[in-house]
């Protein structure tokens, strides 16, 4: 492909993108002559160039489109919807052709008759609604319709031609004409320029000044009059209306100086004007196109340049590092200079990669127009801050997410016009795109004034998709519920439309944004609108990073996610609390979840730490917490040492390590050492499975264990030794507040007359309560049995993803600890207390007790450690022997290996195979055909139960209803025994 063609394709593609939005704009502002002129010019250029390059198909389409645009410009066609649509169709065809041309280097075969025919019909006034009726009144209406005098005079080219003709005529008719001939070209330019300046009201020397100048240079009144006549003739010959010619000529005298005697120094005719021309011309050009002097550079060259500068920065860092160890060196001064130049060079090269964000949303006006047509909605797209610049690489990565979000807004957000009218909104819905710089970030906001996200529908969807249960949702704020739209496979559109809802959801958008270190937040108010806020870094290539050390290994942590550094003296561990191996830190007024970098990364205790610490006491004495922020989530990273910050060049992580979410890249330090760049997002997800959840939902699990995200309602209370305790709310029947003076002693027990029965009261230590005064009592009820647990204070009911660290039996009655509502909280073992109060509490449920010889064997398939620990003791006490499988796969392999079970109790929601999958697999096995399998689930509505039964479950029980489970088991086994007996 020759260079000419390449240039043409590059240029045309750009102009076409511009045209797209301009034409859409034209529809909104049909009378704007500047806009019309610009559109016409672009189309005209394309047509002209195509003709020149011998591209007949392109030329024909462009020509037909230009004709239509010409008629519009001339006021013979009104800017109707049809006209715009047809021109856009033509544009699409041109784009397609240019695209193919770019691929193959030749214009593809084919016909465009249809498009051309339609355009011709429009141009000739057959298809569209031309303004024929107005033809007679055209003159009166012209100023409004036809654009400015400048346009009517034929634009820049028309004026130029007129001036050329006039000068020709002048030379032929004037006496001094022949003598002036060499200067005539200059005069012609000066005149043309003068008209332009006068008509377009741009700064510069206008036509009146040109004439004044001519007079100053000795032109006679006659000569000037002759020139005026010639100009008038020339314009008329070019088809400019008489009225317009008169107005044009009027400009010659506007501002004419009454005293022509004011003589100035002798200058050749028109010279000042002509000298002024190039400069003024440039200004004009700039104003019209917003361009500066540019040079087209291949992107690869820029990328290479960036790589080279990166290397230079690295080498500079290395040199500086070396220099630091030399006090006196002659290299100091030149190195300093090198340092400075490198920094400046780096900045300049970064600038070459900067592009206005408008490039990413240039296609959006067209998109919105097409969408509004397709959907029958009225949508306006407002864009501000399009000139905000950001790195090319980042621009590329947000292009698709932005498009997706605007599409979503148009499809789901904006209502139909009549709905809008009904709710008192303007018919036109507005989608607003705004970008601005904020610190080292770009903030992009996409908002619409549509219907907003109906929280009710999100809830339905969340429950239907099993992402959370009703009760979990009850405990969430509206904001939290709205964040579910970022979960995979989530779309609130009721129907799958051609526009969106094709399965590509907001999760993809969030992933893309997070991949470039960005953050996305979502706010919506039902009925008012929704708003996405995206925060992205300016650049990715070179970032400032904090170098930290952990177990002798160094890592870089991007500075932009670091909030503050806290040095903790190990001797005085004030604020640093270690609850069950889970560190938390009291930072001012908040509890900061901590992760140990060495634990997350699985670093063994430094092999040389034993040798180092005796000499170097610091690592043993103090530790550092890097307080980091990802979205709204703040957490602390424990490291051994903190070094200074360094500008690092981000290099991609090798393919074979990309699965490690903790690293976002790798780099070379000043000393030449390779180090890994930590990804705060990855670290945050190691702390919390939902980094964007509210701080209340913080749950930390150090290390690389399986993430728990099972949110349940916990009743948080205080008792005895002060620290917060919690119990699953569903286990508590009632909360009472009673004066313990009313309690009575019955044998060794403390009992309270309660609801016509006797309720044993116990303390948190398991002993009968022996306290005075009013106390809250947690009442556990089972049939006619009751138990009261006396506590000091009920704090709150908090719904939180429960992530339990098992206490391992360190304290009886405590299952373990979890972070609930930001506090480390002990979860009490309810079963323990129930057993304390009444040894045969559970026996009542095993209505047909088994002898020891017929001990029933239960397989418990449950991925949640919490529920395992709740159920195992309970089942054991009830006389079952329990085998545990932590996931369905393990259960299947156990069964396949021939283990025999009397019952299988399985959770439904598990990572990997679900309970449904498990039961189907097991039922397929002949041997397991009649083993009762009981489903255990956190939600059990009739549909779920039905589904479970279909899958092959024998029964369906809700979690946290141990009684129901035991009843089901005992019922099933009774039925079993009876069946066996009858057989």
């Amino acid at each position, binding site marked *: 492909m020759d260079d000419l063609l390449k240039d043409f394709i590059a240029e045309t593609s750009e102009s076409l993108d511009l045209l797209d939005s301009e034409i859409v704009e034209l529809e909104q502002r049909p009378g704007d002559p500047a806009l019309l002129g610009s559109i016409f010019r672009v189309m005209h250029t394309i047509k002209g160039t195509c003709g020149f390059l011998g591209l007949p198909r392109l030329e024909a389409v462009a020509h037909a489109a230009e004709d239509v645009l010409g008629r519009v410009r001339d006021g013979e066609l009104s800017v109707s919807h049809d006209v715009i649509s047809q021109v856009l169709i033509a544009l699409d065809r041109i784009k397609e052709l240019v695209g193919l041309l770019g691929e193959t280097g030749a214009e593809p075969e084919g016909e465009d008759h249809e498009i051309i025919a339609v355009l011709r019909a429009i141009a000739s006034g057959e298809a569209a609604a031309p303004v024929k009726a107005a033809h007679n009144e055209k003159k009166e209406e012209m100023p409004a319709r036809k654009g400015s005098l400048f346009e009517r005079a034929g634009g820049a080219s028309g004026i130029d031609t007129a001036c050329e003709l006039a000068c020709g005529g002048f030379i032929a008719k004037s006496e001094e004409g022949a003598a002036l001939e060499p200067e005539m070209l200059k005069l012609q330019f000066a005149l043309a320029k003068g008209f332009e300046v006068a008509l377009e009201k741009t700064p510069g020397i206008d036509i009146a000044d040109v004439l004044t100048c001519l007079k100053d240079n000795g032109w006679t009144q006659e000569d000037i009059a002759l020139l005026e006549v010639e100009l008038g003739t020339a314009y008329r010959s070019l088809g400019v209306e008489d009225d317009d010619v008169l107005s044009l000529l009027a400009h010659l005298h506007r501002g004419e100086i009454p005293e022509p005697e004011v003589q100035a120094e002798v200058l050749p005719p028109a010279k000042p004007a002509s000298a002024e021309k190039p400069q003024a011309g440039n200004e004009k050009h700039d104003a019209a196109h917003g361009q500066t002097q540019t040079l087209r550079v291949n992107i690869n060259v820029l990328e290479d340049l960036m790589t080279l500068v990166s*290397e230079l920065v690295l080498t500079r860092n290395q040199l500086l590092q070396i220099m630091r160890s030399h006090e006196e060196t002659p290299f100091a001064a030149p190195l300093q200079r090198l340092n400075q130049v490198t920094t400046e060079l780096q900045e300049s090269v970064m600038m070459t990669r900067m592009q206005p964000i408008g490039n990413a949303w240039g296609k959006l006006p067209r998109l919105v127009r097409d969408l509004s047509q397709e959907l029958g909605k009225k949508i306006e797209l407002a864009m501000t801050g399009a000139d905000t610049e950001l790195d090319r690489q980042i621009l590329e990565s947000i292009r698709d997410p932005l498009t997706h979000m605007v599409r979503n807004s148009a499809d789901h957000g904006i209502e139909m016009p009549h709905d809008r009218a009904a709710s008192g909104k303007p018919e036109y819905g507005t989608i607003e795109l705004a970008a601005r710089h904020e610190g080292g970030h770009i903030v992009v906001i996409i908002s619409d004034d549509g219907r907003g996200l109906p929280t009710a529908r999100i809830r339905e969807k969340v429950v239907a998709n099993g992402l959370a249960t009703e009760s979990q949702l009850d405990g969430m704020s509206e904001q939290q519920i709205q964040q579910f739209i970022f979960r995979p496979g989530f779309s609130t559109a009721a129907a799958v439309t051609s526009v969106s809802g094709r399965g590509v959801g907001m999760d993809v958008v969030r992933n893309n944004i997070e991949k470039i270190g960005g953050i996305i937040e979502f706010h919506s108010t039902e009925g008012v609108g929704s708003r996405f806020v995206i925060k992205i870094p300016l650049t990715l290539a070179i970032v400032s990073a904090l170098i930290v050390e952990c177990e002798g290994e160094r890592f870089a942590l991007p500075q932009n996610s670091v909030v503050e550094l806290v040095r903790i003296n190990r001797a005085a561990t004030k604020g640093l609390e270690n609850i069950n191996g889970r560190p938390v830190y009291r930072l001012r007024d908040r509890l900061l979840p901590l992760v140990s970098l060495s634990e997350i990364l*699985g670093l063994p205790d430094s092999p040389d730490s034993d040798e180092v610490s005796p000499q170097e006491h610091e690592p043993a004495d103090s530790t550092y917490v890097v307080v980091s922020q990802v979205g709204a989530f703040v957490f602390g990273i424990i490291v051994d040492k903190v070094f200074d910050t360094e500008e690092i060049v981000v290099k991609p992580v090798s*393919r*074979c*390590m990309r*699965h*490690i979410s903790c690293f976002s890249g790798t780099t070379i330090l000043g000393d030449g050492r*390779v*180090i890994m760049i930590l990804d705060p997002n990855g670290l945050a997800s190691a702390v919390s499975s939902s980094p964007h959840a509210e701080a209340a939902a913080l749950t930390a699990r150090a290390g690389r264990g399986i993430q728990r995200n099972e949110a349940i309602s916990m009743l948080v209370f205080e008792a005895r030794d002060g620290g917060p305790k919690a119990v699953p709310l569903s286990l508590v029947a009632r909360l009472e507040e009673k004066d313990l003076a009313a309690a009575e002693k019955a044998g060794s027990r403390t009992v309270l007359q309660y609801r016509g029965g006797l309720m044993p009261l116990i303390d948190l230590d398991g002993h009968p309560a022996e306290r005075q005064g009013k106390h809250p009592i947690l009442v556990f009820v089972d049939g006619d049995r009751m138990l009261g647990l006396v506590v000091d204070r009920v704090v709150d009911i908090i719904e939180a993803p429960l992530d339990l660290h098992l206490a391992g039996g360190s304290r009886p009655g405590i299952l373990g600890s979890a972070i609930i509502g930001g506090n480390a909280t002990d979860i009490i073992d309810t079963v323990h207390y129930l057993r304390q109060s009444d040894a045969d509490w559970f026996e009542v449920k095993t209505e047909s007790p088994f002898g020891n010889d017929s001990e029933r064997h239960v397989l418990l398939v449950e991925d949640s450690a919490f529920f395992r620990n709740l159920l195992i003791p309970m089942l054991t006490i009830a006389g079952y022997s329990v085998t545990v499988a932590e996931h369905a796969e393990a259960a299947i392999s156990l069964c396949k290996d021939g283990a025999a079970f009397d019952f299988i109790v399985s959770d439904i929601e598990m990572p990997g195979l679900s309970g449904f999958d498990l039961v189907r697999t097991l039922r397929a096995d002949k041997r397991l055909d009649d083993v009762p399998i009981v489903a255990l689930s956190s939600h059990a509505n009739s549909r779920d139960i039905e589904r479970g039964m279909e899958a092959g479950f024998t029964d369906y029980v809700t979690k946290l209803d141990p009684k129901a489970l035991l009843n089901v088991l005992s019922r099933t086994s009774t039925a079993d025994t009876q069946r066996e007996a009858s057989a």
Partner: protein
Amino acid sequence: MNTSLHTTAPVEGSETATEDYVTMKVAGQTFGIPVLNVRDVLSPQIITRIPLASVEIAGSLNLRGRIVTAIDMRTRLGLPADGFVERAMAVVVEHDDEPFSLLVDEVGEVLSLPMSERQSVPATLDERWRDVSQGIYRLDDRLLLVLSVTSVLSAIGVDPVHAA
């Protein structure tokens, strides 16, 4: 075996065609990599350990500004590798435009071996070894296994090892 009668002009494309191998030793066994695959041979380097990466990945090293992933060949072959990484030689190869270095005990001479003498790997060989070998040469004093760089690298990265 046919040898060319004209000793001065080696015949291209016939059975006498040879391939040059860079030889290296891992735990006493000689391996060879086609010389055209080898970009560099480095003396023991400072290698940055990468937590959470596969056990075969010894870490990353800096080769003139490029970051090279180092593969511990002993571990890859299922051999003990205590203290091996620190004194290992690195053979740099390129795979899909990404540099990798294979850490071996020592790097030896370049051998020019006739392709016709290459035999297939005995089926009884340990699977990990068979996996990475493309063929075997019987040299006078030892056996040379031809390493397939692609196979050496293929198992790494698809199989994230959860180190204890």
